[in-house]
């Protein structure tokens, strides 16, 4: 595929887009991992939400 004389700019633009999208995906995944980790840590220490402690009560 011939991108013409300005190929560098086309590749540059697409690279930036890929970078930004990748960064967004990474942010979401890393944040997810961190929150899950914190929640399981807290649960391990016995600190849970009321609704999880008494399953017979419905939110």
């Amino acid at each position, binding site marked *: 595929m011939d991108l*013409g004389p300005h190929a560098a700019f*086309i590749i540059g*633009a697409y690279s930036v887009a890929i970078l930004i999208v990748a960064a967004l995906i990474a942010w979401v995944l890393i*944040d997810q991992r961190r929150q899950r980790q914190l929640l399981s840590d807290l649960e391990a220490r016995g600190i849970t939400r009321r609704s999880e402690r008494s399953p017979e009560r419905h939110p």
Partner: protein
Amino acid sequence: MPLIDLANPSRFLTLSGRILPWLSAATLIAFAFGIAQVIGAPDDYQQGATAKIMYIHVPSAWLSMFIWGTMSIAALGTLVWRHPLADVAAKAAAPIGAALTLQCLVTGSLWGRPMWGTYWVWDGRLTSVLVLFLMYLGVLALWRTIEEPARAARAVAVLTLVGAINLPIIKFSVDWWSTLHQPSSVLRLGGPAMHPSILVPLLVMGLAFFLLFFTLHLAAMRNEIMRRRVRTLMLMQADAAAGH
């Protein structure tokens, strides 16, 4: 299913957890189609292959405005209907909106260099997007500065709505200003009526980016719900430790 069912964060987590894999798959497929279309698209008679930058620049522009619209609806949810997930939706959308607006600016700049000979042009479109980007940064700053989540949500909601009211005014002002300061021939991006061979790839890429936003947004909302739970639990723990 009524909206109020979704108001329960736990229900939301369950439901969104089920939808998310499908959304992600759909996004990937859409991008696969989109890239294929872009590669096959014909070159513009004036710009050559450089016009291919349009297929990421224009969808980013669409999304930068759509996401502010999403945040505005969420803002109404917070202020008017007190929908519990509205805060979460607003906070999750902001970074994605800022990132895509930045993408719009950078790709526009890289498009401008071969086309207009300079990395930045103060034309109506790019300048409006720059102002929008600054407003996103303001929203992000406000989220970070107010500690208590509910208070932060309400403050950001007001700012978002004031911003939404201003966006058409800013767009109009900047367009007007740029025609005042520039001699006529501003390159029409894509031309007034787009040939299908250029329009179809654009629409597919647009769809792909929209699906990307929905996927990221949903995932980010789930993270935000978890983050708030962590905060609540830590506060409970601190309370217990203080002997309450």
